[in-house]
């Protein structure tokens, strides 16, 4: 017993000595990353978190600008080729040297069955090794935004993956565990020391990292804390140094302690309303034999009946950015001139409805998630109330996201809200996935089946236009048509809020990604 006591004391002293120079950063997010395999799931948080361990060829800087990562330089020798000059003397955490072979292997792995990241290199038909530190990405058609599309396309080690039987991406379809699901070996600034799925992950700096160290951390402890109240309590009680997201109702509390501060920004995800414009008769409606949403006047009536200022102040606590267009500020292709809403005017709405032949309004169903976007259900409820004032009776069905997405993605819906954040941070994704006429792989999330031939054509041109100014003009043209046609009703971008203990500095980037390489703990 006594001996145990002495041992404990010694251990305690050793720990104390260690702690004197250790800088531990403890932080909490809502969920745990889904997998450690960087090609398994294209989910924003998982990719952002894995970006601490794995690196792409071209990364993102503090303002989301493109910066060099594993590639030092990149250029387009001709419109269908992107050449990447790789960084020399880079090693994976496991000691394997990084070369062109790893890039070729990674692209092959990303394109393999079971990978969820294939869309980032969909345009690439071949990756050619020029020498050990130069690779060419060959495309069938010009693709001006490949570097932008691949900022979450992480490079894995060929030798490590093959040795550990993880040459294929982890996929649930294979119904078995993949080594890369629970183990990681990247070139990034941090590496995993210990991981308990869903409980805790301990990261330590990767001593072999090539970059210039801006952080001063010796250890990072990440914990997922699902309950909003508990997450905030953990920050206020000093158990963690940083939490995100901070729910809006706790924002004032975090700011008022004197020991913490709130960092805020706007999401890159735009929330908007879908209206079924394809069916000849709506599914859940009192109008029979025709579809009122095919009439632009009806769409405009809905638009002008929604009071976004009220939603911003009453529901979003003043933290949201009201949207006039389908892409957020910060997304490549955003045009501030388009970011103005039509005026809120219920009288005009009533007039428009009367002109369209619905003087006493009609009845429709609406779908809404209740656990996907910030205040999603409350926003829908507010819209229901606002539409009631112009005579449109809405029957709201708010449900959990698994049920919700099942319903709306099968197009079994009349009116719904949805959010879209282009993973490439480029407007082309919004146009292609949300606005283009649904066909094969195009328009998957265009659940109202809005269709405009000119926008479809423009989207194809945007995909291939190499000149940035011309490309911007094309994007603006497409978004202008969409705006005047009222294909969807843009609502807002929700606010971002991170709670940080004073004495800790982090950089809030508008894609809600915490980059550990910029974290400093002062005391």
């Amino acid at each position, binding site marked *: 017993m006594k001996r145990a006591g002495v041992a404990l004391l010694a251990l305690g002293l050793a720990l104390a000595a260690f702690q004197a120079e250790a800088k531990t950063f403890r932080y*909490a997010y809502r*969920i745990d990353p*889904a*997998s450690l*395999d960087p090609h*398994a*799931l*294209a*989910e924003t948080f998982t990719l952002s978190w894995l970006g601490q361990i794995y690196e792409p060829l071209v990364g993102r800087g503090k303002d989301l600008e493109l910066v060099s990562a594993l590639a030092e330089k990149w250029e387009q020798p001709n419109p269908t080729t992107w050449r990447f000059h790789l960084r020399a003397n880079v090693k994976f955490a496991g000691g394997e040297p990084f070369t062109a072979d790893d890039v070729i292997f990674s692209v092959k792995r990303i394109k393999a069955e079971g990978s*969820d*990241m*294939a*869309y*980032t290199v969909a345009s690439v038909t071949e990756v050619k090794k020029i020498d050990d530190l130069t690779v060419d990405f060959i495309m069938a058609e010009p693709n001006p935004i490949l570097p932008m599309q691949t900022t979450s396309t992480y490079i894995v080690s060929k030798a490590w993956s093959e040795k550990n039987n993880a040459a294929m991406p*982890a*996929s*649930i*379809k294979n*119904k*078995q*565990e*993949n080594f890369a*699901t*629970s183990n990681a070996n990247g070139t990034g600034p941090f590496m995993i020391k210990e991981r*308990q*799925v*869903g*409980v*805790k992950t301990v990261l330590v700096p990767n001593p072999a990292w090539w970059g210039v160290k801006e952080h001063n951390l010796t250890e990072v402890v990440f*914990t*997922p*804390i*699902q*309950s909003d*109240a*508990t997450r905030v*309590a*953990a920050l*206020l*009680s*000093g*158990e963690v140094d940083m939490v995100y997201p901070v729910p809006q109702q706790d924002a004032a509390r975090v700011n008022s302690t004197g020991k913490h501060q709130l960092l805020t920004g706007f999401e890159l995800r735009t929330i908007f309303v879908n209206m079924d414009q394809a069916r000849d008769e709506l599914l859940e409606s009192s109008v029979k034999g025709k579809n009122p949403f095919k009439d632009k006047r009806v769409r405009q009536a809905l638009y002008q009946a929604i009071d976004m200022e009220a939603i911003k102040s009453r529901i979003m606590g003043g933290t949201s950015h009201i949207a006039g267009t389908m892409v957020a500020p910060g997304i490549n292709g955003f045009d501030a001139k388009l970011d103005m809403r039509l005026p809120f005017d219920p009288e005009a709405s009533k007039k428009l409805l009367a002109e369209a032949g619905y003087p006493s309004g009609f009845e429709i169903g609406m779908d809404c998630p209740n*656990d996907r976007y910030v205040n999603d259900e409350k926003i829908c409820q507010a819209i229901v109330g606002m539409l009631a004032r112009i005579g449109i009776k809405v029957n709201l069905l708010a*449900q*959990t*996201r*698994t*049920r*919700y*997405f*099942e319903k709306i*993605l099968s197009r079994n819906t009349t009116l719904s809200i949805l959010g*879209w954040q282009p*993973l490439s941070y480029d407007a082309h994704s919004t146009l292609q*996935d949300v606005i283009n006429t649904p066909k*094969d*792989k195009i328009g*998957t*999330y265009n659940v109202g089946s809005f269709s405009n031939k000119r926008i479809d054509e423009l989207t194809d041109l945007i995909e291939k236009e190499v000149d940035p100014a011309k490309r911007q003009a094309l994007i603006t043209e497409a978004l202008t048509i969409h705006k005047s046609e009222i294909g969807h009703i843009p609502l807002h971008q929700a606010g971002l809020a991170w709670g940080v203990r004073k004495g800790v500095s982090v950089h809030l980037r508008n894609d809600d990604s915490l980059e550990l390489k910029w974290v400093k703990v002062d005391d």
Partner: protein
Amino acid sequence: MGSFFVQRLAQTIVVVLAAALVSFALFRYVGDPVNNMVGQAASMADREAMRRALGLDDPVILQFLRFLRGALSGDLGVSYRFGVPVGGLLMERFPATLELSVCAMLVATVLGIPLGVWTALHRRSVSSHVLMILSLIGVALPTFLIGIVLILVFSVWLGWLPSFGRGTVVSFGSWTTGLLTAGGLKALVLPSLTLGLFQMTLILRLVRAEMLEVLRADYVKFARARGLTNRAVNYRHALKNTLVPVVTIIGLQFGNVFAFSIVVETVFQWPGLGLLVIQSIQFADVPLLAAYLVMISLGFAALNLGVDLLYAAIDPRVRAGMMSKARV
């Protein structure tokens, strides 16, 4: 006795199978897991292919039989969310929930029984009235609110106890425990109290009511008339006779505490089965939910069996009934 046991065992198996089948029929209502398993870039065709590969478009009964066949050969499937075998995940989380439930039930019984006896024996005292009123709070307030208030007071204001997690745990092979470290014990306090509070008030009220009933019984009056000491009457005769329903309740409530620690585990981010399950429901992680539900129904059935056998130990009349039934 032997055939009684066999009979109960057979019943147990039927119950577990029925529970599994019912849960499979219900999985359709948790929604479509596929949309969570692929990123937003996946096309409708990709999603359909995934659905087919997982057999999600097969009829329920086929999915159930497939699960059963796997389970019998020891393969519970791979979690949709985590991509690792379900059996391993459940085993990893099991110690945390067991430890929490046992501590909560310990808190509930160690406090509940003496307090119940006290309030029954000192029915008119001020302390009993205060206890009874306080116990109403335990019954009336929802668990998550109690948890959050405890976090606010003991973690945020006083800074004595952690607000989330298990603290430091020690592992023995696949088993982990927080009982051996100061950090682990501290982390147990708030969740156990929160989880045990309702059970404590339940036990307190039950013991009190039963005691009052028994104290009025003829044999107690007779024992007093014989001149036995208060101590012997109250504890040897009265308390012992109140314990049969109390043991039933403790047994059944233990199952409840274990299975429904979901709320407490969510509030305290306790890395046990409850937290895993709530996340799985949100994700529609069917293999995990199926394995969990079967495990829980197995556990409930086993507990009931155990409680039945305990009756026999406490109450000789039950034992006699069982023996005669077994002989028939």
